[in-house]
């Protein structure tokens, strides 16, 4: 990571390398730049949303080296050299929706869609470790994200449906 000072403000900037959805990107950002802002505004991957900027709502959840994290609670600089997956990287290259995405369609698991990418990322990671969830697991899988629209019933259903779809497709 190379650093320099912004000539105008004198604020330190850093060159940060991020591998996002399989592609390396290089951005020059101040040390204070949040990962969520770097993804959304430097890389223009706006599928990751920001709902609270203090780590409670989960709309900004992305996968860091495969594990879900709040991108608003990470500095972009801290993610230097790491692998990130955002909602844009979830579907198949041919456009086929990921089982979790398809399950959200099937179960009406979203309304306004703002919190949805965070849920989808969290649940996709959860199902990788727990491919055969029961109802309690479905609740646990989505318990750390806020949704204001759905009342969560159909999100829980989507967790079970996604597991079913994954088994069907062998994914």
């Amino acid at each position, binding site marked *: 990571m190379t650093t320099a000072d912004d000539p105008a403000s004198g604020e330190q900037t850093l060159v940060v390398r991020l591998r996002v959805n399989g592609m390396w990107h290089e951005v020059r950002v101040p040390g204070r730049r949040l990962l969520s802002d770097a993804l959304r505004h430097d890389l223009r991957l706006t599928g990751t949303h920001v709902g609270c900027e*203090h780590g409670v709502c989960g709309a900004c959840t992305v996968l860091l080296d495969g594990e879900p994290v709040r991108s608003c609670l990470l500095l972009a600089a801290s993610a*230097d050299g790491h692998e990130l997956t955002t909602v844009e990287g979830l579907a198949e290259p041919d456009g086929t929706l990921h089982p979790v995405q398809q399950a959200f369609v099937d179960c009406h698991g979203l309304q306004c869609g703002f919190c949805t990418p965070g849920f989808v990322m*969290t649940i996709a990671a959860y199902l990788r470790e727990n491919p055969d969830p029961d109802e309690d697991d479905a609740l646990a899988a989505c318990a750390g994200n806020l949704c204001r629209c759905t009342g969560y019933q159909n999100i829980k259903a989507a967790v079970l449906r996604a597991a079913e779809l994954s088994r069907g497709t062998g994914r």
Partner: protein
Amino acid sequence: MKPAPFTYHRPVELDAALDLLGRLRDAGQHAKVLAGGQSLLPMLSMRLAEPAHVVDINALAGLDGVDVDAAGVRVGALVRHRGLERHAGAGAVLPLLRQALRQVAHPTIRNRGTSVGSLCHADPAAELPAVLALLGGAVVARSRRGERRIQAPDFFLGPLESALEPDELAVATQFHRPPPGTGTAFVEVARRHGDYAVCGVAAAVTVDEAGRVRAARAAYVSAGEGIGALDLGAAVAGAGVDVAAWADAGELARGLVATESDIHASAQYRSQLVAVLTARALQDAAAQAGLDSTSHASALDPAQGAR
């Protein structure tokens, strides 16, 4: 809600990190160490903290180990809550770690937050300080000046205040293993799952071969400003685990823990929770202790303590 500017450092050698912290201290520069950042980042974004320097220790090698031995569990500064929670050896030796870690926020936060960082944050509303206070142990602090072990009772100075000097880096924490025949439990009441507790209790009960309570201790979360453990043996020592007056121990605790009011609960309600949850936690712990003294194998069952 964006952080104020700071200079970001990411040393890759421990000595360089310690040297940096030392120089910043000498220069009177305010620096914050960033490990998991799950408490620090919100404070930065809300501009409740505006350090001139942030020292990110995530690139340091050798700080991500969990070591289990007869004395207990040693946890490195970069061990994430989730890693410790999943660590079978640590879970077998100290079930309380897993019992408490499952109450720390949500898995996504635990994926990034570090257990040592939580101790350094010294928040009386957090679970791990209570665990360290109950089990005993030490925080290992390193600086250019050398290494020191700060024992649990000396580490927590007050709310959000630890005994770490500005040039010191907590590189690890040692959690002591309680004596044989000890069971533990962690119970809490939170307004929402994953929130900071309205009140939480970590409890340890030691039982002798005859099934009588030898020791009973508890430490509290969100009960007041202090972080420490109470000896509640006076209420239950000597009694058989099946008949011990856990409720009396709860009442003893109610009298000893100074609770406070906030927007979520009155002090009086918190005191009620101190009494009720103490009794529940001690009873759970005693049940675990019974398992520990009669069957050593079950204490190693990683599922133990699942709630």
